[in-house]
């Protein structure tokens, strides 16, 4: 019986889960690294446990500390969110062994899907088509590069190097020219070891011009495994999604049914439980290939929630509690688009950015949903992933959803930290986005030399006037003083108290 959930995550997804617990009348516990004190998500939990340590490994990845926190607060379930420990089968085992409920699939399912090479083999066996490619099982480090070279030759160019434990674009490299292979393979291995502690790499043929289509699945313990339709997430930079939508703009009911059935078969092949996503590449030919299965809640789950009317996180809580899922037959209505707000410099190869969120004013109005982990006054540090928030819109039609997204992005004011908000806004005007013909290479094709903000000399001149005028009017002196006061300025006899929470 789930009565108190510890959320082993941070940022926007922790906020999402903690609010769902609160609405379900379930107690909640947040865990918080010292450098995350005062973050938004800590305020949404009934209780907060301050972890010890400075690195991610010492805090959000420290299984012992997290399980101890669950015990000390009386939590009886753990929700891992995404990233961090969400796809570590050993952690799921550890949680269960400690008498706690793991909100997610079985450790066996995580293992079978989490290791991307095993997953490819499992899917082949279940009759789900996989991308042509080759797994490299070589364990001797010295011989790995050689084995990879051989596999590359058999798969052919262009190809994609992928970390077997990978995700989020980390440890992934596209190689178009055999001459670049060695450098790319080494970089991918290094990144994979740094990010996942596992340098195993496999090779897939690079299917250029394909769409990234994924199917959301849900499975409960009462024998029901369903799919909630697709999301199209083709628009990616650095192999990371930035623009996601549901339904897919070129999807047909027949193809949805076929891909949905393949996804359900994939989930059933590993006795899946809870929420998961089966990712496919949809080639221009209409063929689709299994890419991988994410055995957790996904960043882009809101677009599915908005078009299907299913609260996926709430269903996760129900399923973990042994209840049947509450949603009925699939009913897709309208169109939803999500963009990911990153602290990054889109004009400089999407380099992550840091700084204060001196001004952070999200857009408002009907049909707009903001899943944010930050708010005005926060500092963006290099300690964590640069994704700050997700802006999601729903409208009756795709055209109207794009219109709403344009307005929302125009009204989103973020000052003090460079973000990709203008890049996202320009995306909404790009022809492949307008006509729904996006593929995984759309961004590279649209901006082969990198994106730059469009020049508008009238606005640029006006912005200079604003800067000079704001200096004249002393706006900076006003803001500095009020910022100081907001955090317990010099007048307070308890100036250090704002560091005392939780």
């Amino acid at each position: 019986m789930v009565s108190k959930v510890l959320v082993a995550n941070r940022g926007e997804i922790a906020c999402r889960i903690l609010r769902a617990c609160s609405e379900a009348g379930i107690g909640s516990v947040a865990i918080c690294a010292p450098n995350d004190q005062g973050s938004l998500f800590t305020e949404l939990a009934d209780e907060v446990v301050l972890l010890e340590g400075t690195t991610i490994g010492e805090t959000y990845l420290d299984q012992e500390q997290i399980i101890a926190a669950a015990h000390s607060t009386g939590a009886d379930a753990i929700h891992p969110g995404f990233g961090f420990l969400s796809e570590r089968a050993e952690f799921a085992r550890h949680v269960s062994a400690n008498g706690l409920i793991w909100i997610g699939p079985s450790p066996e399912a995580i293992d079978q899907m989490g290791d991307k090479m095993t997953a490819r083999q499992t899917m082949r066996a279940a009759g789900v088509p996989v991308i042509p490619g080759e797994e490299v099982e070589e364990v001797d480090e010295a011989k790995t590069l050689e084995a990879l070279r051989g596999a590359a030759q058999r798969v052919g160019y262009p190809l994609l190097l992928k970390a077997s434990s990978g995700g989020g674009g980390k440890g992934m490299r596209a190689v178009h020219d055999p001459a670049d292979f060695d450098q790319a393979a080494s970089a991918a291995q290094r990144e994979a070891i740094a990010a996942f502690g596992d340098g195993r790499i496999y090779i897939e043929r690079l299917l250029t011009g394909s769409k990234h289509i994924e199917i959301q699945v849900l499975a409960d313990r009462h024998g029901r495994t369903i799919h909630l339709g697709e999301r199209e997430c083709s628009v990616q930079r650095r192999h990371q999604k930035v623009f996601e939508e549901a339904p897919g703009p070129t999807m047909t009911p027949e193809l949805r049914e076929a891909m949905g059935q393949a996804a359900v078969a994939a989930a059933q092949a590993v006795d899946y439980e809870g929420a998961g996503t089966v990712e496919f590449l949809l080639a221009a030919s209409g063929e689709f290939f299994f890419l991988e299965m994410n055995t957790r809640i996904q960043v882009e789950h809101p677009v599915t929630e908005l078009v299907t009317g299913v609260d996926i996180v709430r269903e996760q809580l129900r399923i973990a509690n042994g209840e049947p899922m509450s949603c009925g037959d699939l009913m897709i209505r309208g169109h939803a688009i999500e963009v990911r707000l990153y602290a990054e410099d889109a004009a400089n190869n999407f380099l992550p950015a840091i700084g204060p969120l001196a001004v952070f004013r999200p857009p408002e109005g009907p049909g707009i949903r903001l899943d944010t982990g930050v708010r005005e006054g926060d500092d963006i540090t290099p300690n964590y992933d640069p994704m700050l928030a997700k802006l999601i819109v729903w409208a009756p039609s795709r055209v109207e959803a794009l219109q709403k997204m344009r307005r929302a992005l125009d009204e989103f004011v973020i000052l003090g930290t460079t973000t990709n908000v203008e890049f996202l806004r320009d995306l909404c005007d790009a022809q492949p986005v307008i006509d729904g013909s996006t593929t995984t290479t759309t961004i590279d094709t649209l901006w082969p030399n990198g994106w730059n903000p469009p020049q508008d000399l009238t606005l640029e001149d006006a912005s200079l006037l604003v800067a000079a005028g704001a200096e004249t009017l002393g706006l900076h002196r006003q803001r500095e003083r009020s910022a100081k006061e907001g955090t317990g300025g010099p007048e307070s006899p308890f100036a250090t108290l704002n560091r005392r929470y939780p």
Partner: protein
Amino acid sequence: MMQYTFASSDGPIEVTLARHGEALQLSGYSLAQHDRGRLLVTLANGTTCIAHATKVGDVWWVHLNGRTYRWERIEPGSSSAHDEGGLVAPMPGKVLEVLVREGQSVEAGTSLMVLEAMKMEHRIVASTDGMVAHIHFQAGEQVAQGAVLLDLEETE
């Protein structure tokens, strides 16, 4: 009349504001204080928009019609804040690899150094044709944000 200097990629820009009644003016544009730290801009064609502005360090961040501009103010008498030709670390991180040696001539776009930050690898790329004059960090070293990684002498 108030005069300010801002940095731009094309060199310093001088801005001279005129006060006209209660408004500030610059070549056909007009500015008035709105509320909540915002400003009302009237463009030359008469349309108005609301601007948000905030200063972080020496930089004014301005949001206007969906676009964000950054203008670094150069205080009178101060020298330019940037070391010319210095390639700086965009954030704290670790040097993974140095791809060039001192004295080497490079073309604009050449990868000079690989940096790991925020769990991802970033390439430091030559901004112009030039010669690597000095390398300040070696592989494995931690760098702070803004640290100058290499000096690049621009080729005439």
